[in-house]
């Protein structure tokens, strides 16, 4: 239960606040348009997946991140394809924000062999290593130490690449989160922990689960640099990521970014009105007023009303991209039965065995 004395997120957890247009002054319009396009792509792709869940065409469990797009896009904007990212069960946004093809996602949730995991993982097991996404898995907290291990490898490599662990507020309740922060801090490993605090872990609000609602306090406990931002403001997310990554890359030490946001759909599945089996009675309508996409558009339009043409172009391009990707995904075959056995062990031979 939340300690009433605790001052944590403050206005950041209120859907009545932080509704104003995103301040985009001084930002390159092309960059803003890229962020816009990436967020629209995530939103539309997930809306299409939601429709396919409703129709029964998609059957694997899907945890949609509609409403949370700005976090993935803002962070990814500061990453390269040689950085190593890890996600969890709600990671469509991470996959798409890193630039991986939407066809690989759609085919994967449809169980097709052309999916990013060959049709073996569904929505909860995505990968796109060529875009920096090593893997996402649905055991809560599992990829946090794995990202730390990637950071160890990157440190040993000697470059300035970093590892990124995307996790939710619920994952901070697993012991391994705290072990990982300490390990990364004490070993000075280049890893950015991105905590998407959407205030819920499935059916339970954070006030039932923790005495405080701001998760950056864990960073403080481990002497890890950190920032706390409005996760529905892509500019704020990107700026904070830029500052933190400057430290992580140059000083080879961990950092925590906490981005406060909200999911619009139920914990799993397509519905807005039902969450984990019960009628939803939260303040979703208010949160929709804090829409990360609308706020960015408003900010851009306030500086340049002509930009609407470009925004509309983004929307129609994205729709076309998704339609084409979906028709290819639907036409693709299911994986071959023999792959069930063939995929268990590696078929490669370790060529580095003899030194």
């Amino acid at each position: 239960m939340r300690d009433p004395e605790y001052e944590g997120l403050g206005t950041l957890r209120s859907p009545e606040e932080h509704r104003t247009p995103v301040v985009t002054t001084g930002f390159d319009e092309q960059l803003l348009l890229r962020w816009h396009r990436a967020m629209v792509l995530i939103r539309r792709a997930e809306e299409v997946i939601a429709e396919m869940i409703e129709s029964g065409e998609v059957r694997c469990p899907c945890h949609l991140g509609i409403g949370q797009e700005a976090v993935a896009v803002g962070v990814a904007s500061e990453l390269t394809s040689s950085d190593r990212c890890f996600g969890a069960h709600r990671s469509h946004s991470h996959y798409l924000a890193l630039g991986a093809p939407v066809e690989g996602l759609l085919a994967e949730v449809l169980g097709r062999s052309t999916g990013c995991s060959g049709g073996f993982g569904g929505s909860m097991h995505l990968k796109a290593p060529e875009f920096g996404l090593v893997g996402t898995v649905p055991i809560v907290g599992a990829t946090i130490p794995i990202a730390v291990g990637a950071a160890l490898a990157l440190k040993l490599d000697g470059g300035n690449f970093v590892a990124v662990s995307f996790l939710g507020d619920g994952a901070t309740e697993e012991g391994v989160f705290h072990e990982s922060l300490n390990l990364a801090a004490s070993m000075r490993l280049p890893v950015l922990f991105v905590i998407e605090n959407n205030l819920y872990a499935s059916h339970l609000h954070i006030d039932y689960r923790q005495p405080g609602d701001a998760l950056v306090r864990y960073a403080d406990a481990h002497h890890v640099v950190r920032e706390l931002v409005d996760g529905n403001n892509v500019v704020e997310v990107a700026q904070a990521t830029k500052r933190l990554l400057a430290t992580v890359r140059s000083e080879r030490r961990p950092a925590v970014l906490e981005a406060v946001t909200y999911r619009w759909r139920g914990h799993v599945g397509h519905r807005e009105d039902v969450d984990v089996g019960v009628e939803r009675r939260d303040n979703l309508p208010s949160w929709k007023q804090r829409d990360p996409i609308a706020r960015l558009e408003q900010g851009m339009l306030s500086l340049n009303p002509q930009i609407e043409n470009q925004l509309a172009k983004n929307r129609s391009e994205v729709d076309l991209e998704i339609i084409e990707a979906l028709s290819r995904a639907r036409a693709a075959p299911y994986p071959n039965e023999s792959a069930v056995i063939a995929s268990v062990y590696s078929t490669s031979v370790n060529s580095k065995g003899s030194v």
Partner: protein
Amino acid sequence: MEYGEAIRTGFHYLLESDRSVIVIGQGLWSPWYVGDTMRDLEKEFGTDRVIDTPVSELACTGAGVGAALCGYRPIVTHPRVDFALLATDQMVNQAAKWNSMFGGTSPVPVVFRMIVNRGGEQGAQHSQSLYSWFAHIPGLRVVVPATPQDAQDLLVAATLSDDPVVYIDDRWLYDWDQAVTAPRAINLASQGPLVLRHGTDITLVGLSWTTRLLMDAANLLQTEGLSCEVVDLRVINPFDASVVAQSVSKTKRLLVAEGDWVTCGVGAEVITRVIEELGPHALSVAPKRVGLVDAPAPTSKPLENNYYPKVQDIVKHVNEMMKWQ
């Protein structure tokens, strides 16, 4: 009464009749996690005794062990076997060994309830049952109810036991509907395998979900003129092989269906123990294990469909075994 409702009846009986019973775990207030098996129990018995938790399997399981050492009978509930793996230290290193390593006078009356929840394209990390993993550990009693009656009775027996008990129920059984008698106190140590259906041609051994599969297969095979004896294991640690051995001494044929990977599985144990008891000539045909191929669960629908054994697979194997006289 359906299996899921029978579990709830067991919980209700325990919470009502014994103040020391508490339930702790993730999703206890959510039908999405535990189905109907705990519906509204927190409303009737209070959130102090029916405790929904943060996402902290290891701490909650350890807390169950600690409360058990201090006078309570906690039922730690994990909505999936897969999630319980984060808590293995508390189950395997602590609870299972506590009594023995302190000289046999420190019992730990805790239940670790785990739910098998698979299918639906959930994939590798949301599909495991791992029965034999737990049955391998001395100090853990392991119960795997198949019938609605056992879903209720074995929960009661597990909770009243002074030992740590792993209780694994399966969502594929939640709609199995059978008459169930009212709950009563049962001594778990007196429980073991049971013959659910008498027959003379072949012994079919199952546990949890596969027992239902075998009962369906036995019904089909009867229409083909075959008489199958079905043994439901119910308790797989400590394991009593005598009921299966007795059956096999009559039928001379043995098939075990285990709904899990067969390598080092429950089936291997059953077959070995039967041979140990009856000698090398106990069987007239090689025994058969039916289970999962040695691979994690795939998601893609066609692959997932093939991954789990079906009634028809059992029928086919039995027919093959019956060719040998």
